């Protein structure tokens, strides 16, 4: 579904992505792990068009999307839940959700999707008219994921959805991602520092350090690899 080839993204002199290559299987959940500053956020921002790479290619579903603007990439079926969710706190819960699917022409499909998202995240349905600024951290993350689903994506990029959440909520969010993969065939690229929860639901995992891939294995093998776990995953 997603193929990345020798991607380089820089901030001035910092090479945040350093000839990074990666690919994902369809209807799989791929974890991207790594310490602070490894380049995980930069990777997602470059894929979704928020950042322009210096060199390298990103292909989505066989189409070269390198350097396209973000609003075009999401319309191709690739949705990005940014770091901290990116919930627009000045808008209501429902406005945030509707915004996610507004570009789709089919009104009936949009309405159906909204009901689907409310079914998936009942706390959002209860608070649909509330200002998004009044939501708890867990609810905000649900809103961010639900909003991305409003575009009916083929693939979802998530940037540390567990950040700052209680363990029980993290488990709940991981289960929802697993169900989306298993039930809807959604392809997921999940960036996490919380390697243990990510690998509990992932099929494959990449480990990044200094903008490079230092390991890629099936999730079970990553969990079993003590040396790698100690060196990069911190558990």
């Amino acid at each position: 579904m997603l193929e990345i080839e020798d991607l380089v993204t820089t901030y001035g002199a910092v090479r945040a992505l350093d000839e990074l290559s990666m690919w994902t299987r369809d209807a799989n959940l791929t974890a991207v792990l790594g310490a602070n500053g490894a380049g995980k956020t930069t990777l997602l921002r470059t894929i979704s068009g928020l950042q322009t790479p210096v060199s390298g290619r990103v292909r989505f579903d066989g189409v070269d999307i390198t350097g396209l603007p973000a609003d075009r990439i999401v319309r191709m079926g690739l949705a990005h839940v940014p770091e901290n969710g990116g919930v627009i706190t000045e808008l209501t819960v429902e406005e945030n959700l509707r915004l996610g699917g507004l570009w789709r022409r089919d009104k009936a499909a949009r309405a159906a999707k909204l009901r689907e998202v409310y079914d998936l995240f009942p706390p959002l349905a209860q608070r649909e008219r509330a200002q998004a600024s009044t939501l708890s951290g867990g609810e905000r993350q649900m809103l961010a994921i639900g909003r991305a689903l409003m575009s009916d994506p083929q693939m979802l990029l998530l940037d540390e959805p567990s950040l700052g959440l209680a363990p029980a909520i993290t488990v709940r969010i991981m289960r929802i991602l697993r169900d989306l993969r298993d039930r809807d065939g959604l392809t997921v690229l999940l960036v996490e520092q919380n390697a243990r929860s990510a690998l509990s639901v992932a099929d494959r995992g990449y480990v990044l350090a200094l903008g490079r891939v230092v390991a890629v294995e099936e999730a079970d093998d990553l969990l079993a690899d003590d040396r790698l776990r100690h060196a990069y995953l911190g558990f």
Partner: protein
Amino acid sequence: MDKLLTLTLGGLTSGAVYAALGLSLVIIFRATRVVNFAQPALALISAYVAFSVNKATGGYWLGFAAALLTGALLGALTERLIMRRLADRGHLAPVIVTLGLLMVLQAVAGMIWSAEPRSFPYAFDFRGTFSPAAGFAVAVVLVVAAGVLVLFKATPLGLRMRAAAFRPDVAGLLGVRVGLMLTIGWTLAAAVGALAGLLAVPPFIYPTALDSVFVHALAAAVIGGLDNPVGTIAGGFALGVGLSFVSGYVGPELVTMAALAILVAVLVVRPHGLFGHAVARRV
């Protein structure tokens, strides 16, 4: 009592103009955090176009429509050709550029239409207390303001525009064409500004005709909160009435000073406007 009524109605009429011009500033400020100092010049040129069309055709409304179209077009061009290039240049550059544009456009207007005051018609009969022309000014501003509010609050386009203003990065990730939203915002704002110009200019048009109106409109927007359309409209009418009282009961020579005094007083007590709230966040 009669004087009070006359002053109130007169104040509402000039307040309508401050409200409309203030609203055009707010639309752009909400979207870009830029105070468009070129707004009076865009409105001026639009009004001059109405003047020329009036002279050529003899009718008022064709010129009226031409002015709104000219305003819309000038707004779109200003955003596309100038403001877009300044997006990453910090907060000061856009302010200075709009100020420069103000002076250039006023000079251009003077070159095309001369600096001499030319007579400019009212929409309707302007004689008497609260004339048809005054009633038209108040009504059209209220209708336009309501329309802008409905657009922002209750339409998909308005939702996109608000999202693009609050979080351009996130809006892009949600499929919103942020650049297009900015162009639409400038277009709409400059059309509203052109309307204000048409209401403010009569009986005479000349290159600096809108300068003092603009100062009052800016004061209205600051009083109401620069990112608060409702507050600005209320602020415009309130300022119009307040200044009309100052002029009628104290003396017309004190109007400008009173406007500044009100402005400073509001800024001291409520730095984000009477109805505004802090715009601290700009992620």
